[in-house]
């Protein structure tokens, strides 16, 4: 019981936290450790997080939005999606209205996000690299961006 509590606290602390006092940060795409996830390119990541369908090696990939930390979300939208939060939300809405489908589910708590990665085959999300390495049962699929946060 204590071990599970400790694990849960570790996930909460590490998943959303920005890399403190580290000038260079790395944003990575992650999935469940047991997943047979193929490599996903940056173009495909953008399509995926805009709600477009993506199938790789027969696996339907599903995007999950990591809303556990404002800075993380901001960096993901600016550096990976190349748009503001408002433009992103509007674009998602517009795509779904035009083509159908579903907007990527958003998680504002770390534990449900990690649980969703585990429960949904083909699910991916984004994290800081150090958070990903510190989170049990999560593996890195690819690097999305690296640079200075200052």
């Amino acid at each position, binding site marked *: 019981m204590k071990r599970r509590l400790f694990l849960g606290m570790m996930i909460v602390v590490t998943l959303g936290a920005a890399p403190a006092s580290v000038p260079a940060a790395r944003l990575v795409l992650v999935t469940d450790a047991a997943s047979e996830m193929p490599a996903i390119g940056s*173009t495909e990541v*953008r399509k995926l997080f805009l709600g*477009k*369908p*993506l*199938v790789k090696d027969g696996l*339907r990939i599903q995007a999950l939005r990591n809303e556990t930390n404002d800075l993380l979300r901001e960096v993901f939208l600016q550096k990976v*999606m*190349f*748009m*503001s*939060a*408002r433009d992103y*939300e*509007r674009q998602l*809405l*517009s795509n*779904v*209205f*035009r*083509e*159908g*489908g*579903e*907007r990527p*589910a958003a998680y504002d708590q770390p534990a449900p996000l990690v649980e969703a990665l585990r429960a949904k085959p083909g699910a991916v999300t984004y994290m800081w690299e150090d958070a990903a390495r510190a989170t049990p049962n999560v593996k890195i699929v690819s690097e999305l961006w690296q640079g200075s946060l200052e």
Partner: protein
Amino acid sequence: MHTDLCRRGLTRLALLAALLPAPAHAEFILFPQLNQVERRGVAPGINLEEHEFKPGVDIFYSSDHGRLRLLGEFEILRGKKPKAGTVERLQAGWLLNPDTTVWLGRHHTPFGYWNTEYHHGSYLQSAVTRPGIIDFGSGAPLARHLTGLLLESAHAGADESGLRYSFSVGASPGVGSGLKEFDILDFNDGNHSWGSILRVTHHWGGAHHTEMGAFAGYMLLPGNNATLHEVRQTVLGALGNWEHRRVRVLGEAYWVNDIIDRPAGNASGSFINVNLQVEYKPHEDWVLYARAEDTFGGDGDPYLGFFPTFIEQRGLAGVTYMLTPNQAIKLEAADVRLQSDRFTQINLQWSAAFP
């Protein structure tokens, strides 16, 4: 009257809701709107009111079940003709691959840019109104929906640019006073034949949404009254949307040819319609826009005679302010010319998307 329309609308909505499954995660989005329209100088014979308050809501549903994709859209709008509540879209799609979907059902016709990019869900578009050629109600001479098959496909390269294709074939509207489109919940409502449209666009990848393309359509539009047997309509056109930083330009051009078969003898005509809208975003919360629409060769066109409230020419300017990330308020002023009237119009609209 409105109570009856509302009751019929709600009955249709309940029937639609019963048809659509509710999986654990599905999109269910409400697009409410409040419109106040003020017109000055409308001629007495024209069927347009000087003051109109038009509240409405567009109810959108979408879900994925493996490769099966379901989509439903229902609109209730006060004053909408011929019915206040209509099933706008009801489609079942099959994802052949991630870039190709084949749909069956009532769908938006791939004419131009506006009809598929912006339809109902006013919150999504900067302007209050749509171009007259593809407007809602009885004034627009082109079909906004077909009921049948729609194939959508995209082929993009590594730089995310590429081609998009849309091919639509299905039951076309009938012509009477305006177009009467196929009602998916009332098969016996008017006459219908068939129509087909192909659209091809090239889009540039990345964060901007620049695209250009062309489309071609052929429609058989049966008459809904004794004075008309059928209209054979050919439509050719081009579209474009260009975005760079704070500026956006979008436009369409249509060439429409009609051969009218009627008991009194055949007639034919053709006209060109163009529209161009420019938008400027001085701030994330504000959009300033202006649009010009014009029709060439439409005077005395026998087909346009069935559309007395068709907007042949319009110049408008407006402003959109985002009250919150999902609510907008828009103010638009326009100089409008119909075939036999000219007036000014002010539109004030609140619109939103929830959630």
